[in-house]
């Protein structure tokens, strides 16, 4: 394995798949803190791409300018889905299995519903071709570089927020024990809404980065969902750091295999099998406290 191959895999992997890491962080945040696998998260990503594209093409703003409003819009959408669907579902005591199916239904609904708003054909960002910057001998577009930098910065910010800030403490308390948290004066609605907002922002930004690099289509987020899910489930057991680590590792592995096989689909297949093996070996998450 020569040095060229390694550097190429590293650079391409990190820059092309930085959005994957960001999306995985957002998804894992939601999963760890609410226990919910939100299949519709993939549409948060897709719609992030669409929002950015819409702001870009309608108002003629450049990519860097649309990022923040895109993130905010995606965050708001995420909160809206929580308040309109997931929170009412929880109050009706919908079980875990049904919750996943509800989120699946929402995902399908958004994926197809958005086409009535944004049209059926594939859309594109209207941006001038980005500069190419050489990193370790590999050409990288400025957008991709921005993606990596953003992901790194956001990950650190998020980590600091969750671990150090007052709200972060409340989030962790709520995740641990809802009743105790309530008794301590933490307002679950406020804190949970905050979690959904942050997750939405992360997903939306990931979508914008995906979209500007290629195109914007209804399947944009869904194509990444399985990998995001796997990274979050496997990495999430070691906390936020674990998700980042597994996400980065997956990104590099994807790039390496794509270079090797000359085909990204094989890379995905290998990763699917690998993750399933890991999940199986790690065994069931059935709690230690059996009830019989």
């Amino acid at each position: 394995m020569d040095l060229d191959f390694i550097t190429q895999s590293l650079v391409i992997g990190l820059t092309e798949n930085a959005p994957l890491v960001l999306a995985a962080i957002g998804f894992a945040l939601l999963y760890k803190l609410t226990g919910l696998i939100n299949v519709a998260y993939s549409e948060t990503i897709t719609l992030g791409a669409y929002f950015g594209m819409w702001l870009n093409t309608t108002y003629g703003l450049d990519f860097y300018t649309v990022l923040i409003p895109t993130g905010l819009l995606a965050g708001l959408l995420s909160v809206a889905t929580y308040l309109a669907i997931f929170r009412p579902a929880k109050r009706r005591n919908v079980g875990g299995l049904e919750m996943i199916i509800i989120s699946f239904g929402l995902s399908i609904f958004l994926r197809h519903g958005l086409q009535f708003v944004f049209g059926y054909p594939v859309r594109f960002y209207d941006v001038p071709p980005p500069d190419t910057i050489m990193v370790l001998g590999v050409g990288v577009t400025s957008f991709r570089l921005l993606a990596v930098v953003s992901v790194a910065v956001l990950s650190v910010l998020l980590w600091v927020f969750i671990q150090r800030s007052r709200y972060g403490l409340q989030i962790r308390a709520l995740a641990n024990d809802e009743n105790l948290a309530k008794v301590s004066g933490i307002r679950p609605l406020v804190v949970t809404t905050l979690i959904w907002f942050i997750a939405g922002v992360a997903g939306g930004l990931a979508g914008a980065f995906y979209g500007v690099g290629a195109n914007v289509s209804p399947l944009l987020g869904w194509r990444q969902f399985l990998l995001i899910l796997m990274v979050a489930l496997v990495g999430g057991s070691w906390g936020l750091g674990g998700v980042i680590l597994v996400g980065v590792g997956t990104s590099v592995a994807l790039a390496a295999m794509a270079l090797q096989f000359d085909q990204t689909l094989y890379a995905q297949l290998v990763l699917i099998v690998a993750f399933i093996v890991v999940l199986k070996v790690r065994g069931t998450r059935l709690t230690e406290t059996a009830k019989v």
Partner: protein
Amino acid sequence: MVAELVDAVAPTRPRIRVQGVVKSFSGRVVVDVDDIVLGEQPIEGLIGPNGAGKTTLMRMIMHSTPLDRGRISLLPAGGGEVVLSGLPAHRMARHGVVKSNQVIMDFDKLTIWDSLLLAAAETRYEQPHRIFSERTVFAKHEDEIRTYLDYFGFADPTGFALSAGEKKLLDIVRCLLLRPTFLLLDEPTAGLPAELTEKVMTVIRDLAAAGTSVVIVEHDLNVIWSLCDVVHFMAEGSVILNGDPQSIRANRTVVEKYLGEGHV
């Protein structure tokens, strides 16, 4: 009556040995039992304050809760040794080791008949291709099940068990249908009215007389004193005392930690 049914059990007494068994939850040691043998006497009681680890110990014997350390073995009546702590949970019943549940456990969508037929039915009839076997299974077990239904007074067995007491009773009858050689009962009479408690106690006596070893966890001490030949006292995860009901009842430590002065 019920005794005829339980006659199908082995003629000598099986025992369970718990050695060096430890279990912790979130850093707190919940069970720490050095070496005890259960089942030497027909009916044994296990008492102790809440949080003493009685239910956890029972669950570890059934291997539905994994052990951190140690070993639990079944010493069957005919000889030999079966390491229970190495078996998956569903194999317990095959060796005749059965436990009733302290917490109400039921199949919400299954009727009383369903529940009992489920317990009684052999695995070979429960295969994907045996879609005409209901009549066979019913015919095989109808009489036995009806005896229990009539004895315990289940009014409408084609319906569901609704009250907590009914569900408790159903749980116990399911255990009985499994033809246990070693029966663990976790608070079997909790929530039952007096006549039903009496009936459960009668069944336990008959079962034990026919050779099944019974271990009962109970907070209703009248049941313990009147049924048990031996009582184990458990506190803070360990079995700290054994003895016949009289001596346990009068024991200083037991009185202080559990019974309170008024009970003696």
